[in-house]
């Protein structure tokens, strides 16, 4: 079975590698036969644990697709960068080489790429960084890219080396000052906005971070595409659990209509 690019699979994903990269984050490499590629910002639902039916945890976990090697080849490799947070990610961290995980994806709608020649500013905090690598790579093919990354400490900056390997401007903020500017990543935004007046702005990270990023950009008259991380049960639009309140009233489904939204459309006051 071979999926069209972006067509979602229900696959048995074999763990090729599941390596600790920082005090609390790991890199997971999965063999996903038939995986047909993804758009930056799309995600997959991962079911950790070797037992079927799975029960602890019961629900799969949403994870951004970090990158994919050999898209379209018979045995593409999907990479996930994740932080151990609670029960589900702890179970994921216990998966060994050769084990099989459940994977449904790619899901959702990714980031609209900048237009040809347009620049881009990417703001990533915490686990949100994992949604941005592929976006950075593709955006860099279209125009100048500035990437702003933040975390508590240098050791928690997921995927830093992969961003460094790309040909783009990288700015870092850490709360403890162990790398780059001390403070929050959103503090780097005003300068970047000033430096790149025509660039499209993208953000992914904790809700408060995205909200602040959206407000700062809006103050400069610039829209932001934000990728939300709401809790999810299904990932494909049937549980209605991931709803994000919209400014005009009503809700959008993060898994189906997003995870990427125009930040101005989201009613941040009523987010959980």
């Amino acid at each position, binding site marked *: 079975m071979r999926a069209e690019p972006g067509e979602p699979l229900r696959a048995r994903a074999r763990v090729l590698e599941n390596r600790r990269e920082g005090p609390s984050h790991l890199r997971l490499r999965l063999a996903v036969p038939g995986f047909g590629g993804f758009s930056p910002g799309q995600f997959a639902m991962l079911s950790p644990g070797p037992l079927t039916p799975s029960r602890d945890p019961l629900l799969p976990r949403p994870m951004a697709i970090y990158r994919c090697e050999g898209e379209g080849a018979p045995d593409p490799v999907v990479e996930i960068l994740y932080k151990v947070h609670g029960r589900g990610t702890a179970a994921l961290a216990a998966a060994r080489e050769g084990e099989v995980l459940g994977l449904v994806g790619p899901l959702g709608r990714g980031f609209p790429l900048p237009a040809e020649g347009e620049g881009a500013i990417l703001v990533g905090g915490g686990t949100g960084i994992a949604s941005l690598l592929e976006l950075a790579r593709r955006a860099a093919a279209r125009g100048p890219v500035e990437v702003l990354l933040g975390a508590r400490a240098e050791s928690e900056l997921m995927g830093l080396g992969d961003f460094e390997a790309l040909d783009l401007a990288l700015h870092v903020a850490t709360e403890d000052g162990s790398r780059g500017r001390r403070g929050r990543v959103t503090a780097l935004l005003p300068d970047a906005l000033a430096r790149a007046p025509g660039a499209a702005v993208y953000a992914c990270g904790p809700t408060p971070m995205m909200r602040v990023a959206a407000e700062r950009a809006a103050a400069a008259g610039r829209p932001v595409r934000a990728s939300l991380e709401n809790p999810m049960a299904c990932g494909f639009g049937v549980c209605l659990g991931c*709803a*994000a309140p919209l400014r005009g009233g009503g809700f959008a489904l993060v898994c189906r209509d997003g995870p990427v939204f125009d930040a101005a459309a989201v009613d941040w006051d009523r987010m*959980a």
Partner: protein
Amino acid sequence: MSSPPDLAVDLGGIALRNPVLTASGTFGYGTELAPWIDLRRIGGIVSKSLTLRPRHGNLPRRIAETPAGMLNAIGLENVGVDAFLEEKLPALPDGVPVIASLFGTEIGEYRAVAERLSECDRVAGLEINASCPHVKAGGIEFGQDPGHLARLVREVRRATRLPLLVKLSPNVTDIARMAQVCEGEGADAIALINTLQALDVDVETRRPVLRNVLGGLSGPAIRPVALRMVFQAARAVSIPVCGIGGIETGEDAVKFLLCGATAVQVGTANYLDPAAALRVVEGIAEYCRRAGVASVRELVGGIELPAG
């Protein structure tokens, strides 16, 4: 036993090619899962509960995980009966039985939704959601009080000639009595259980995990309660019973059949695996082959009770 087992059942006048439906609120309007599951291979679909007008539902957080289960308080977000009939239903492949679930904040709304749905011959049957524990007006009283439930079923029965299922709330003292009330008012089948009313708290914020405070518990955790209630309801009525609650595998479904269910619905398991309902169908067939059962109907109510 070389011929494949006969899986067909009749659920209160709805002919199903096999006894596995998808539960309301866990399968959208049927089209969402088309990338992963051939809808013509499952017994049928129960729609998200429909109201007269579209509903937005509750503020987040709407879902949470619990041991072997999940909590939800979606707040009955749905597209409304009109959009269902005009947009959702036509998008489904022919030959897939669709049961429309309906909900109202008062009996008049239930009636009106039932009437609208009955005009469409693509609808195979109706399922009254008498049991939503997290909408403050409506649901909870209908499903928990025998008198209200009787009035509700009576009124909807008058409004439709379609096969009529009533989905019961498990949050009651005497489930057998509620089933009898429905049978007495002319329901064609009973479906149970809906979610158990429940609550979880975040000890860091000291707030309920769900914005709605209370939610409904579903998933494998509730399966033993669901089996008990199906067992009790099936012995109390002579109309068919549709079993729901924590079904993940063919063997889980067989347990419900043995307890007296004619068919089952798969709910939360769809979230874990979009092909879960199909796996349940295959699991039932495999069980029948292994156990030498020619027709799945032989299993219905086949539990053997110890003497004495």
